[in-house]
Every structure is written in structure tokens, then in C-alpha cells.
């Protein structure tokens, strides 16, 4: 293969040097800007988690002081939620793939897309600068009146940083919604869209409508701290619980911002490596939308013991059980997709199967939290910590890894080393369960979250969890090295290494700057793996249609 010819016709070869990357409006390059910055944030937040787990290996607070510990978990939460999980799949894979999957040349607003990255960097670095001055110790939830009247950290700075990042989220959301509505290729009807696109749409909807409410609550916190306006101050007639309502109106749907894209990735990977259409395509597509809407109706389940009225608690519990249904439907459909397939176990498939297991167990744990009487006991304990890490890390990060490996050949034009990939996936899965399963037991025993020290009888489970964290860290560090290596030394990737059906596989790997040489037309449903001729890596599924 001729290296020169390839690089000059791919988006990677279009101008080198910092300016060509930092001023690009090509969605594929913006995706890389995000990918690099998010990777840095992920490992920064991860390092804090490892430090906390080492501290928690013993009941006493012997490694770091209580103040430092509180700052560690606050920043771990802020970084992981807002600077990694919320943008993770949408801003990297979504940015790269959305136009390719719907047969467009770019997102609807390429400059807005680049601007969103700058705003993201501005906000996140501003928030992180607070660490230099001394950090924040409010937890990522910024509960009032702790955050407004009692916290001595740089709360306003962190809040303003998160506020700014919110703008970048909204920009991405608007861009995605408009792109999906207006730039689909001829013949690509809504029910022919890949599920990944559906989930991007649902995610963008939540981003656009929930983020401003977070912005409002953060503004009010900053006003209270800097200007003394007592909006959540009970002494001035304010209501601290009102903050929780506003905060969770955003932050519960934000959980769906974080998990829906992961569901999208898995819905691409499972059919491809099973060589089968996705089971119940319409149900999966519509349940994504249902999750996006119903996700807004359940925030009160974070407040069952907060002092809100018991009847509101009952209502929110009921709605929480309802929102579990679309997720359950998805799990059933994914499982049935494997039936009568021709299954192979490349790295993306391994990650996807691990996602399925971890998401299922995390989701089932959610039933305990939605059940009122049990939640009273396990609320604010490690049970909650374990539950959301099963969804966010076991679910979302695993899906992210699946997607990264699946589309790595498309993004870089190189194959990753398969053996290393499989090892890393397995190590991650084992390390993850070792880290977080003991936390379910701890939670049931009554171990409260955000504790710097703890009673000695809990130590056994904490040691298991800390040991798991080390394994997990190794599992996440391995791809950093072998993917980095494959960027330069990996085998050349063909256009369609997985013999997949999506439009993104129809163009070269890596794609040319304008995405498609000839604008594609679509006349088939998604995941048509029964199609003849798909055995060949060079086969382009949509080209034979006139």
C-alpha cells in the first residue's frame, strides 16, 4: 500500500502543525481534540480515585488529611461527570461518526463545533485552576447551604467552570439535533437510522433541555457566595431543598446523557459481531427516546429522606420504576440479537458483552434504590456508589472502550493489536467487579459514602475494593499504550474491517476530508447483515443500489 497516496487523501493528511488542528472545522479533527483532552481528564480523575482507594485500605485516615480527601472526591466527581462522562462518547465518537453515519459532509455548524471545544477547555481548565488555589470540598453535588455558607474552598470558581462547560454541552446538543433533522442522506429515513444516531439524538435533547437548569442553580450559588443573595439560605427565607430539586432536575437526566450513547455503541457492535440484525430495532430506538423523556420525571428519588413530602416520594418511586422498563427492554433485545448469529469475539465484542453484564447488574441494583423502604436504608451509602459506578463506569466507560476499538480503524486507518485488546478488556472486567461488587455489600452493611475514615469492621470489603482499583487502573492503562503504539505501527486498516453495514464503513479508512467521494443513497434498513456479498472487507453495502 502506498503511504503517500493514503495520507494525502485522508483527513489526517490535510495540513499538519498545531494551527491546522487547533483551527480546524472538520468534525473528525474536532473529535480528536476532544478525544485527547478527555483522555487526559479521565486519567486525572482516575488517579484521584486510585489515591482515595489506597487511603481507604485502612480504617484510619493515614495517607491524606480529611480536608485533602474531601477535595479528592469532590474533584474526582466534578472531573469525571462533567469533563469526562457527559462529553465522552458524544463529543468524541459522536462528533466523528454522526456525519459519517448519516451520509453528511460535516455537522450542520462546523464552526460552532470547534467553538464548543474551546469553551469546554476554557471552562474545565478554569475549574481545575481552583485546585491550584486549594480546591473545592463540596462534593460534585454542591449541596446548599454547605456550598454557599460553609465551604471554604473555591466553590465559585469550580461552579463557574462547570457552568461554562455547560455552554459547550448545549452547543454540541444543538448541533447534533439540527444535523440529524436536516442532513440525513437521501433514503435515510428515521427508522433506517443506526441506533447510535438515535441515542445521539436522545442525548442531545437531554443536553439542551437539562443543562440550563444546572446553569441556573450554579448561577444562584455563585450569586449567593459572591453577592450575598440568600436564595437557598434558610435564615433569609430560602429553601435548601429547592437547590436539590433544581440540581437533580439536571443531574438525573445527566445520567442518561452519560449512558444513552453507550447503549448506542453497543447496539452497533453486537449486531456486527453476531452477523445478525439488531433484535427489535424499533423497540430499541423508541425506548431511547422514552428514556430521554421519562428520565426527567424521576429526579425526586434522590430525595426520599431529604424531608420532601412522603407522597412526592411515592410518586417519584413509581415513576422511577417506570423508567426502568425501557432499559429492561433494551437488555432483552441485545441478548436476543445473539441468537442464531455467527459470533466472533474481537475486542469490541468482548467489551460490548462485558457492558451487557455490568449494565444489567447495575440496572438491577437500581431497583433496590427505587424501592422506597430499601432506599431509606441504602441511600447515601456505598450501595449508591456501587450502583452508579456499575452504570457509569461498568456501563458507559466499557461501551466507550468498545466503541473506541470498533471505530479505531476508521479513525486512524490502523488496526489495534487484537491480543492486547482482548487482555485489556478481560483485565478491566475483572478489576471492575473486584472494585465495585464489595461496595454493594458495604452499602448494605451501612457504610456511608464520602467517608474519609470508617469503622474497622468494614475493612475486609474495603481492601478487596482497593485491590480491585489497582487491577482496574492497569486495565485502563493498557489501551493507552497499545492504542498509542498502533497509531504509528499498527497494521493498515481496510475500509470495512468488520464487514459492517453502517454508512461510515463505505468510505476509506481514514475518511477523506469531505467524508464521501460520492454522496451515498440509502435503500435498506440498518443492520442488514443478511445481505449478500458482505463477506468481503472491501464490499460497500450501499453502492450496488442505484
Amino acid at each position, binding site marked *: 500500500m502506498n503511504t503517500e497516496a493514503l495520507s494525502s487523501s485522508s483527513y489526517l493528511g490535510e495540513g499538519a502543525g498545531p494551527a491546522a488542528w487547533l483551527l480546524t472545522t472538520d468534525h473528525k479533527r474536532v473529535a480528536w481534540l476532544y478525544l485527547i483532552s478527555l483522555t487526559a481528564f479521565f486519567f486525572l480523575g482516575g488517579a484521584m480515585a486510585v489515591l482515595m482507594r489506597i487511603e481507604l485500605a485502612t480504617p484510619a485516615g493515614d495517607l491524606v488529611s480529611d480536608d485533602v480527601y474531601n477535595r479528592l472526591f469532590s474533584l474526582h466527581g466534578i472531573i469525571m461527570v462533567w469533563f469526562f462522562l457527559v462529553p465522552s462518547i458524544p463529543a468524541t465518537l459522536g462528533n466523528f461518526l454522526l456525519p459519517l453515519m448519516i451520509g453528511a459532509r460535516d455537522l450542520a455548524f462546523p464552526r460552532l463545533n470547534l467553538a464548543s471545544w474551546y469553551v469546554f477547555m476554557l471552562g474545565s481548565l478554569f475549574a481545575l485552576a481552583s485546585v491550584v488555589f486549594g480546591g473545592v470540598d463540596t462534593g460534585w453535588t454542591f449541596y446548599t447551604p454547605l456550598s454557599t455558607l460553609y465551604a471554604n474552598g473555591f466553590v465559585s470558581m469550580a461552579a463557574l467552570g462547570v457552568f461554562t462547560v455547560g455552554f459547550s454541552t448545549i452547543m454540541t446538543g444543538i448541533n447534533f439535533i439540527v444535523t440529524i*433533522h436536516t442532513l440525513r442522506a437521501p433514503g435515510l429515513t428515521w427508522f433506517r437510522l443506526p441506533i447510535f444516531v438515535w441515542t445521539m439524538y436522545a442525548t442531545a*435533547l437531554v443536553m439542551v*433541555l437539562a443543562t440550563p*437548569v444546572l446553569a441556573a442553580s450554579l448561577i444562584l450559588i455563585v450569586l449567593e457566595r459572591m453577592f450575598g443573595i440568600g436564595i437557598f439560605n434558610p435564615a433569609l427565607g430560602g*429553601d435548601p*431543598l*429547592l437547590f436539590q*430539586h*433544581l440540581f437533580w*432536575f439536571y443531574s438525573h437526566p445527566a445520567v442518561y446523557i452519560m449512558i444513552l450513547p453507550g447503549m448506542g455503541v453497543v447496539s452497533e457492535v453486537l449486531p456486527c459481531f453476531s452477523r445478525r440484525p439488531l433484535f427489535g430495532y424499533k423497540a430499541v430506538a423508541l425506548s431511547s427516546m422514552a428514556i430521554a423523556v421519562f428520565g*426527567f*420525571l424521576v*429526579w*425526586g428519588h434522590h*430525595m426520599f429522606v431529604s424531608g*420532601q*413530602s412522603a407522597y*412526592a416520594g411515592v*410518586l*417519584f418511586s413509581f415513576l422511577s420504576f417506570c423508567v426502568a422498563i425501557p432499559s429492561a427492554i433494551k437488555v432483552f433485545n441485545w441478548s436476543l440479537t445473539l441468537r442464531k448469529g455467527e459470533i466472533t469475539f474481537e475486542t469490541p465484542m468482548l467489551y460490548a458483552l462485558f457492558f451487557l453484564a455490568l449494565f444489567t447488574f447495575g440496572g438491577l441494583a437500581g431497583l433496590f434504590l427505587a424501592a422506597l423502604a430499601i432506599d431509606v436504608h441504602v441511600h447515601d451509602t456505598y450501595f449508591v456508589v456501587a450502583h452508579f459506578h456499575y452504570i457509569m463506569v461498568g456501563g458507559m466507560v466499557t461501551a466507550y472502550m468498545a466503541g473506541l476499538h470498533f471505530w479505531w480503524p476508521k479513525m486512524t486507518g490502523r488496526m489495534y493489536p487484537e491480543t492486547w485488546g482482548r487482555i485489556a478488556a478481560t483485565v478491566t472486567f475483572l478489576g471492575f467487579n473486584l472494585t465495585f461488587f464489595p461496595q454493594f455489600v458495604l452499602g448494605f452493611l451501612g457504610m456511608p459514602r464520602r467517608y474519609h475514615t470508617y469503622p474497622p469492621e468494614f475493612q475486609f470489603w474495603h481492601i478487596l475494593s482497593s485491590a480491585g482499583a489497582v487491577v482496574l487502573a492497569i486495565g485502563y492503562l493498557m489501551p493507552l499504550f497499545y492504542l498509542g503504539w498502533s497509531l504509528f505501527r499498527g497494521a493498515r486498516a481496510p475500509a470495512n474491517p468488520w464487514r459492517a453495514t453502517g454508512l461510515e464503513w463505505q468510505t476509506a479508512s481514514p475518511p477523506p476530508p469531505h467524508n464521501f467521494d460520492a454522496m451515498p443513497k440509502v435503500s435498506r434498513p440498518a443492520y442488514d447483515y443478511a445481505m449478500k456479498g458482505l463477506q468481503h472487507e472491501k464490499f460497500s453495502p450501499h453502492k450496488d443500489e442505484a
Partner: protein
Amino acid sequence: MSDIRKLTFVYLVLLALLALTVGSSSFDLGGFNSALNLVIAAAKAAIIATMFMQLSSGGILPRLAVAATGLWLAILFGLTLIGR
């Protein structure tokens, strides 16, 4: 020029509604003052949206955005007020 005339008419209607709001506030309507004010404000907003912002002639998509926003605001207000 009928378009200019139309816009001017809309402008005058808005001013008239404003006068109505301010005027009504000097009468005691037995607790309905706030409700009336909000109804008038909603009417003004609807006029601005349809006439100045051309919501009515902009196709289905803008209306979709407005409907979604309305639904979500209703959720925010409704469930928060229930939760208290």
C-alpha cells in the same frame, strides 16, 4: 408595504396590552391581578413569537422546539411544586 403596516399594528397592540397590565394593577381584582398579569404576558409573548419571530410560518421544526420546551417547563414546575 402592508407588511410594515402589519408590524406596526402588532407593535401598537403590544403597547395596548402593556397599558392594560399596568392599568389593571391599580384595581383590586380580589386576587386575580397576578393571574391577569400572567395571561396578558403570555398573550404578548405569543404575539411576539408568531408575528415578530415568524413562528407560524417557519415550518414544523421550530414549533417542535417550542412544544418540547413547553413540555419540559411543565415537568420542572409541576413536579417541583408537588415535591415540596
